[in-house]
Every structure is written in structure tokens, then in C-alpha cells.
């Protein structure tokens, strides 16, 4: 680290650590956490709603406040994921897989403690890394052109479809149905309608928030209406001891946290990838590397660590292309890009020369925001856990009302509400037949990114299919995709051979 960088960081700390800024960070984190915990209210929504309120503020305070809201909203999505099987934000979708089963076993407090610790630690470490690595990571992110983004999308979808669930083919079927659904709106280059069934709500894109809420929350209601409460353990306690047990568990898993944080940081640095990709990839990686992969999806705490640490790291990672390249790393950073421009900062390669102090203030604010998150989250979690013991016939109507208004909130459209309910039914049918929901969601989210990258690559290359094999990064990603498809059968064969040889030796 150069003396100049140290000097700028010291100055940035001086600008950041004023009573006013700290108050705004505390308010921002709390507001973000509460808003992010409402299913259907994404981090993007939350930051966008707060944007007009920051206009009278100075640029530093405005950006610090928005960053704090981003941090809070990112964690906030984990709260309903743990308690009611509903990701509050897209970044908490993989959290649901293990956190909710933990709640059902009466371990909601522990799950919340794990999610808090993983989020905070992942967010803190990634913010520190970004502080020093903003410029070099920006240069690497620049190497990812449309070709690499296309292959990365295919790899991400394949890896997750293979890792999640017990049946690879069913996972891939769900993933490719998701890609097909995402290709239903208008052609991205010609604007011609494809298959939208005459619904204007599908003209532009398939809104993935109603899809996610429908697949998880609404489908769960079909089961929950038949139960007495979310947790079958009526003696579930809500003590800080249980929450801190979860915190301690996450702290004793430094490798899992750092690995997940690293995945979140790298994927967050890819323009357009965002939290929804990072938490799935991280969860899949944690499952693959686990000694007990079959326990993932059944309430394995390491699954919660993987998802939450990665989606917190995406917060910092997504600021890299936003600040260094002027390309938003996620939907939320797209809104923050607007905020930067509104307050006179021009993101891009020149930012670190012209606005180095402001850029460092934003990154450092993530550090402070994560510390406040620890305090705020611990303060409210003990009381939120009570939700899992409330009667289901009170929870179900409440969730239905909240998800309906949440789905409506995105585009003020009843079409989105009906779409959410339709996907709720689809989710129920999928769950009854052992199809994992995640590949479907991932296909719908990644579909526009993959298709757009594909079309632009074909334009650039003059329709040459070999273009997709024309770079080292692309070839590496193709190899990883093939490995992901065949690693399980190959490892089964290898294990069988080793077992036979061991028997022979014995």
C-alpha cells in the first residue's frame, strides 16, 4: 500500500467518522434491514425509495446513507428467509434452503445468529479487501466481455442445477425451463414480441420478484395452512444465548466464511451478476466441499453461512465495477450510480484520480455499517423469532397480504400479483415432485443476461460460434461447466473403485 493510499484512507476516515455521518449510517442500516425483511421489497427498491430523500444532503452523507441502506437491506432479506421460508431479497434465496429447515427444527434463533455473524464478517472482510483492491479488481472485471459473461451464466446455472437437489436432470430441466421463460418477452435486439400470451406485463421482461416470492412464499403457504405452526417444536426458546450460539458457530467456521466471502466478492465484481447468482454459487460450492453434502437443504448451518457471507460480500464487490468502471454491479448499485451522478461524482476509470476521497469514504462506510448491522440485528432478532411459534392460521393470511402488496409494489400492477400466485402453484407442484426451485429461479434471473450477452457476442463475431471459445477465460469456464456436469458420476466411479480395492486389500 502506497503512502498516498494510506493518506487518502486516513482522510476518508476523518470525513466519515463524524456524529452526523454515524447517525445517518445507523438510521440507514435499520431502515434497510426492516425494509429488506419485507418479502417483495428488494434492496433496489429500498435504495431507490431513499434516493430522493438524499438530494438535500451533501454527496458524502448521501452516499454513506445509501450504502448503509444497501448493507441493511442485504441482511434484512435473511430474516423472513429464516422465519417463514420467504427470501426478503433475491440475495437471501439460497439462505432459505437451510435456514428455514433449521427454524422448523426449533433452531430459528441459532439460524438468525449464524446469518447475522456471517453477514457481518463477510461484509467487513470484503470491505477491507475492496479498499485495497478497488483498482486492480476493476481491471480484471474489465476483461469480462459479453462472451465471458455468457459462458459464466451457463456455468453458474449448470453448477447450481447439479449441486442442488438429488437429481441432476430434474435440476437442469428446471433451469432450462427458467431460461425459456426468461426468453418469452420481446426480442432484445429487434423488439419483436415472442411469447407473452398478450399480457403487457410480460412485454418487457419477466419480473423476477413476484416469481421468487411466489415460488418460495406462496408455495409454502399450501403446506403451512395444514400445520399448527412453522416450528413443530412448541418449546422453541428465544434467548440471546441461542442467537449467540449461532454467532459463535459462524465464527468457528472461518474457512467457510472466507470462501463464501471470496465467491461473493468475485461474482459481485462482475457487472450484472449480483447477489442472486453469488449466494447460489456459494451454497453449491459449500455443499460440494462438505463432508456431508446430503445434509445441505435439510438444515445444515454451513448452508446459511455460505449464502449470507457471499451476499454480504457482493455489497462491496458490486461497488467495484460501479465505481471503477461506471457499470453497475447489481440492480441496487445501478440506483447508487444514479445517486453518484446526481451528486456530481462521475464513476469510471477516472474516479480514483478525481474522486479518490469520496470513493474511499463509500467503501469505509460499509465497514461502519456492518458494525451497526451487528448491533441492530442482534437487538431485533430475539423478538422476531417468536414468529415461528405463532399459529399458522394467523401467519398464513398475514404472509399472503404482505406478499400481495409486495408483488404489487414493484410495478403497481395486479398482473405481477397473479403471476406470483401462478408461480406459487408451480412451486407447489415442483416441490411435490422433487424438482428444486432454485435452478428455475436462476434461469429466469440469468436468462436476460445470458441471452443479451449471446446476441451481442454473435453481433461482434459475425455469427461465428467459435467466438465463444476464443479466450482463455471462456475456455476455462467451459471446462468448469463440463466438469460440473460430470464430476458427480466420475467421483461415484472413483469412490467405487477405491472401495473395491480397499475390500480386496482387507
Amino acid at each position, binding site marked *: 500500500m502506497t503512502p498516498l493510499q494510506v493518506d487518502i484512507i486516513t482522510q476518508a476516515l476523518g470525513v466519515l467518522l463524524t456524529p452526523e455521518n454515524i447517525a445517518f449510517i445507523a438510521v440507514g442500516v435499520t431502515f434497510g434491514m426492516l425494509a429488506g425483511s*419485507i418479502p417483495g421489497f428488494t434492496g433496489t427498491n429500498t435504495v431507490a*425509495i431513499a434516493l430522493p430523500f438524499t438530494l438535500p444532503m451533501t454527496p458524502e452523507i448521501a452516499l454513506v446513507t445509501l450504502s448503509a441502506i444497501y448493507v441493511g437491506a442485504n441482511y434484512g432479506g435473511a430474516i423472513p428467509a429464516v422465519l417463514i421460508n420467504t427470501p426478503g431479497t433475491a440475495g437471501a434465496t439460497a439462505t432459505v434452503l437451510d435456514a428455514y429447515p433449521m427454524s422448523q427444527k426449533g433452531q430459528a434463533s441459532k439460524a438468525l445468529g449464524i446469518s447475522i455473524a456471517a453477514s457481518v464478517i463477510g461484509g467487513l472482510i470484503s470491505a477491507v479487501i475492496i479498499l485495497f483492491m478497488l483498482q486492480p479488481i476493476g481491471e480484471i472485471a474489465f476483461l469480462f466481455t459479453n462472451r465471458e459473461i455468457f459462458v459464466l451464466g451457463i456455468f453458474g446455472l449448470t453448477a447450481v442445477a447439479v449441486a442442488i437437489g438429488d437429481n441432476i*436432470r*430434474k435440476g*437442469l*430441466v*428446471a433451469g*432450462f*425451463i427458467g*431460461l*425459456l*421463460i426468461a*426468453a*418469452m418477452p420481446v*426480442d432484445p*435486439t*429487434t423488439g*419483436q414480441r*415472442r*411469447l407473452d400470451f398478450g399480457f403487457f406485463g410480460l412485454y418487457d421482461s419477466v419480473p423476477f420478484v413476484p416469481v421468487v416470492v411466489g415460488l418460495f412464499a406462496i408455495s409454502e*403457504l*399450501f*403446506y403451512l*395452512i*395444514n400445520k399448527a405452526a412453522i416450528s413443530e417444536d412448541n418449546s422453541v426458546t428465544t434467548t440471546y444465548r441461542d442467537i449467540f450460539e449461532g454467532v459463535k458457530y459462524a465464527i468457528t467456521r472461518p474457512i467457510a466464511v472466507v470462501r463464501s466471502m471470496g465467491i461473493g466478492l468475485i461474482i459481485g465484481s462482475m457487472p450484472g451478476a449480483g447477489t442472486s447468482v453469488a449466494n447460489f454459487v456459494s451454497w453449491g460450492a459449500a455443499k460440494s466441499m462438505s463432508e456431508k453434502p446430503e445434509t445441505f437443504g435439510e438444515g445444515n448451518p454451513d448452508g446459511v453461512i455460505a449464502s449470507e457471507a457471499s451476499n454480504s460480500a457482493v455489497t462491496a464487490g458490486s461497488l467495484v465495477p460501479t465505481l471503477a468502471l461506471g457499470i453497475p454491479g447489481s440492480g441496487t448499485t445501478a440506483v447508487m450510480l444514479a445517486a453518484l451522478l446526481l451528486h456530481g461524482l462521475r464513476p469510471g476509470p477516472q474516479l480514483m484520480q478525481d474522486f479518490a476521497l469520496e470513493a474511499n469514504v463509500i467503501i469505509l462506510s460499509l465497514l461502519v455499517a456492518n458494525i451497526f448491522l451487528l448491533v441492530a440485528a442482534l437487538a431485533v432478532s430475539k423478538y422476531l423469532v417468536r414468529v415461528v411459534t405463532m*399459529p*399458522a*392460521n*394467523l401467519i*398464513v*393470511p*398475514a404472509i*399472503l*397480504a*404482505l406478499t*400481495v*402488496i409486495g408483488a*404489487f*409494489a414493484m410495478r*403497481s400492477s*395486479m398482473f405481477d*400479483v*397473479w403471476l406470483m*400466485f401462478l408461480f406459487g*402453484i*408451480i412451486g*407447489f*407442484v*415442483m416441490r*411435490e*415432485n422433487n*424438482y428444486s426451485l432454485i435452478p428455475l429461479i436462476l434461469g429466469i434471473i440469468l436468462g436476460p443476461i*445470458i*441471452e443479451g450477452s*449471446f*446476441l451481442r457476442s*454473435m453481433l461482434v463475431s459475425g*455469427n461465428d460460434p467459435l467466438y465463444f471459445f476464443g479466450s482463455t477465460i471462456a475456455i476455462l469456464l467451459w471446462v468448469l461447466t463440463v466438469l460440473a456436469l460430470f464430476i458427480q458420476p466420475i467421483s461415484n466411479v472413483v469412490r467405487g473403485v477405491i472401495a473395491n480395492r480397499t475390500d480386496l486389500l482387507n
Partner: protein
Amino acid sequence: MTSTEAEEGATNRPTPSTSAVALFRLAFPLAGLVLAVLYVESTYGRIRLNNLYYPYFVIGVLGVLTATVFATELRQLLEYDGEQSFVESVREAAFEWRRSIGFTVVAVAYLWLIEPLGFFPATALGMIGVMLVGGRRDPLWIAISTLLIVVFVYVMFVQIMGLRPPRGVLGL
């Protein structure tokens, strides 16, 4: 009934009909195939081929994967021995999932009523309906819960977030 008796009852129950099981198991991949056929029918000849490479590649892969899933499921169904008739199986499933079916009916009615009645009146009716389906009968609990949720949604989404849900003929 003891848990052992309940388990014995479950294992002694006649197995649902093969056709009912097949219909349910193949519903999702079949829906994917139908979507693919509709997609091709809607786009072929209308959109230039260059722009169809990607979606048709997805359809091609989906077709192959679905065929393998179908093959596996049909092989399992060939070994399956259904004892009930199709109608009996559907009737039994409807009874087992009666609360979920009731919830679906109430939820659809709720969504349908939002535009004519307005979001808040429809939500109040919908919540009461779902609570009744879920087995809650205490009018005081129903009233208090409905009021709390409606007030929370109003404060959070209308007052703070500035959202404007549908108002309906009553203007609510």
C-alpha cells in the same frame, strides 16, 4: 389413534391409481414441453433465424433433458401398482389437501376482488376467509389480527413508501 396405528393406517391405505400418479409426476416437464411448442409456433417464420439461435438452443436442450426425465418416470411407473381408480385417487387427494384447496379458492377470490372492491376491503375479506379455512373460529382473534395486518400494510406501504394500491368502487 396412536402413532403406530396411524402409520399402519397409512401403509395399509390402497395406493393411488397409476394414471393419477403419472399425471401429477409428469405435469411439470410436460408444461415445459408445451411452452416450448408454443414458443416455436409463435416465433418461427416471424423472427429472423439469427435471433432464434439462443431460444431454440434452450428448447433443444430442454427437449433432450425432458425426454430422459420422461423415460425415467415412465420406467418407474411401469413398476408401480396402483390399486385405486383415477376418480378415487383424485377424491382422496382432494380430501387430504382440502385445506390447501380451500386456501387456493379463497386466495383466488381475494385477488379477483382487489380491483373491484379495493385492496384494503379485499384484504380484510381475504384474511378472514383464510383464517376460517385454517381452522380459526374465534371472532375476536380474527378481527384483531385482520385489523393489525391491514393497519401495518397501510402505514408501511401507503404512508411511508407512498404506494397506491387499487382503490375499487368504495374508494378504499
